[in-house]
């Protein structure tokens, strides 16, 4: 598996355990970008020459790949610069129809990219923001949904998988509760897509956001999926070329979705690279890979139990979670821990992981996070456990 990732193949001694921040890029994605940039590079939806036509076809084909990965229609796929841009797009375009008195429900487990846009919407429109709390095991306290969802709730914006605890949201329960009050649901899939293709029709949500760099594709590209019947009614977020029907001195008309939401030159080569990564992912045996990820996560959790003074944030169970494990060690700062780990060839992130409300709920300011992906194996976990023992000695 490691050999398919050029950076990991070139750096045999590297134990990369920060895939929740950015996964390594797969060779297929890199090759596709290079092929496109050296064979089909031109702007899209603008030129009539053969090269421009090739670029158009590559870009629209990428839209198709993203749609297959999510089990949705291609015309419902909007390419953005990443999940953050996708969520901001929903906050602006869906938010444009909200007014004072309307309510949006978020959770305390959100990454800042699915929290701050709603705080900003509250400032712009005077909406009310309700916050679903998390339980000590890191799971969303879904039992509070009936109290928090009201007639005025227009949108529920939740993470599919926590970037800190790895807790997976019971999306069916959320969608069921939201529908009872007529609210729409936007799901932040940034951490989920790395662990396999998604069936959005089965999940039943209304919007879905993810980033290419978290699922073995290039940086600078992401996807917003929205139900066709919603996208066709929403106003654009950014203005510019490509998103208009006609422009004159008096105003402009909107292009059809999804182009309405893709102002300017889109991330063409990045979308092509992302499509190659997604196609590669769809060729894999995900039930087997998930079993392997769970076993590796169990090995990690078992090893962490043996480290004196270490506390895992959230659940200690390997099942029913993504292989993302955050922890604190009494008396040691995450930055110092990560610095010592780095000297042992281990790449981990320490800090607040852009989830300060969640960390506050879990009673910490910062933590160290190990996130496993399909290219990690036993040797990475063993190196981490060794590294943590070294860190505890070096820092005391």
């Amino acid at each position, binding site marked *: 598996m490691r050999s398919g990732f050029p950076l990991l193949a070139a750096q045999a001694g590297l134990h990369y355990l920060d895939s929740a921040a950015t996964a390594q890029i797969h060779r297929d994605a890199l090759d596709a970008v290079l092929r496109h940039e050296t064979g089909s590079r031109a702007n899209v939806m603008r030129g009539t020459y053969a090269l421009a036509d090739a670029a158009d076809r590559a870009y629209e084909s990428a839209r198709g790949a993203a749609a297959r990965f999510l089990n949705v229609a291609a015309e419902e796929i909007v390419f953005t610069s990443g999940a953050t841009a996708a969520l901001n797009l929903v906050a602006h375009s869906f938010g444009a129809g909200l007014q004072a008195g309307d309510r949006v429900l978020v959770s305390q487990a959100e990454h800042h990219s699915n929290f701050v846009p709603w705080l900003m919407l509250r400032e712009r429109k005077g909406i009310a923001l309700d916050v679903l709390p998390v339980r000590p095991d890191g799971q969303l306290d879904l039992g509070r949904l009936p109290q928090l969802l009201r007639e005025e709730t227009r949108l529920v914006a939740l993470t599919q998988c926590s970037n800190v605890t790895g807790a997976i949201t019971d999306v069916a329960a959320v969608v069921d509760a939201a529908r009872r009050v007529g609210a729409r649901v936007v799901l932040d899939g940034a951490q989920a897509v790395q662990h396999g293709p998604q069936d959005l029709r089965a999940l039943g949500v209304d919007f879905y956001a993810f980033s290419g760099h978290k699922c073995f594709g290039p940086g600078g590209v992401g996807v917003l999926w929205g139900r066709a019947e919603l996208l066709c009614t929403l106003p654009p977020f950014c203005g510019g070329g490509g998103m208009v029907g006609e422009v004159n001195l008096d105003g402009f008309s909107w292009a059809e979705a999804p182009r309405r939401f893709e102002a300017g030159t889109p991330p063409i080569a990045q979308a092509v690279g992302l499509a190659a990564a997604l196609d590669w992912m769809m060729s894999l045996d995900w039930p087997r890979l998930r079993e392997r990820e769970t076993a590796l996560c169990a090995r990690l959790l078992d090893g962490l139990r043996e480290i004196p003074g270490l506390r895992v944030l959230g659940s200690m169970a390997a099942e029913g979670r993504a292989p993302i494990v955050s922890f604190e060690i009494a008396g040691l*700062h*995450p*930055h*110092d821990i990560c*610095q*010592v*780990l*780095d*000297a*042992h060839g281990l790449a981990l992130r*320490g*800090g*607040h992981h852009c989830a*300060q409300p969640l*960390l506050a709920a879990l009673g910490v*300011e*910062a933590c160290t996070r190990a996130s496993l992906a399909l290219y990690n194996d036993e040797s990475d976990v063993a190196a981490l456990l060794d590294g943590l023992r*070294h*860190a505890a000695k*070096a*820092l*005391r």
Partner: protein
Amino acid sequence: MSAGAELYQQAIKDWAGADHGHGRLDPADAAARTDNPLCGDRVQVTLRLDAGRITAFAQETRGCLLCRAAASLLAQRAPGMDAAAAAAASTALEELLAEGRDPPPAWQDLAMFAPARSYRSRHKCALLPFRALRQALEGVSHREQ
């Protein structure tokens, strides 16, 4: 010696562990808080002043060993300093981290941060208390203008 061990030499751990000047002055003549948005670390500095010179210094630091060592060192050296001296100390640390320039004789203790030079993301950790001190003193001088 590994890079991690070199960075965490005994002097850093000793200064951090000593936690000189820990606390908060109340009342204080000047105060400032600096945050590291990368990790949420925070330094709160409170000062008492006489004619622009620091007569008492207190710090509350939530941070890594580098940050806490810097705050503790500053607590020992700050009394008697004015805004210009604080700026000079901060500049000395910035130049040590950015360019590897030796600190002036009065600030030789800053040399313990030299191994952090290779780790750009850690520069702010050591600089955070110095920036808090500068901000506190600049706040006073702005009020006096």
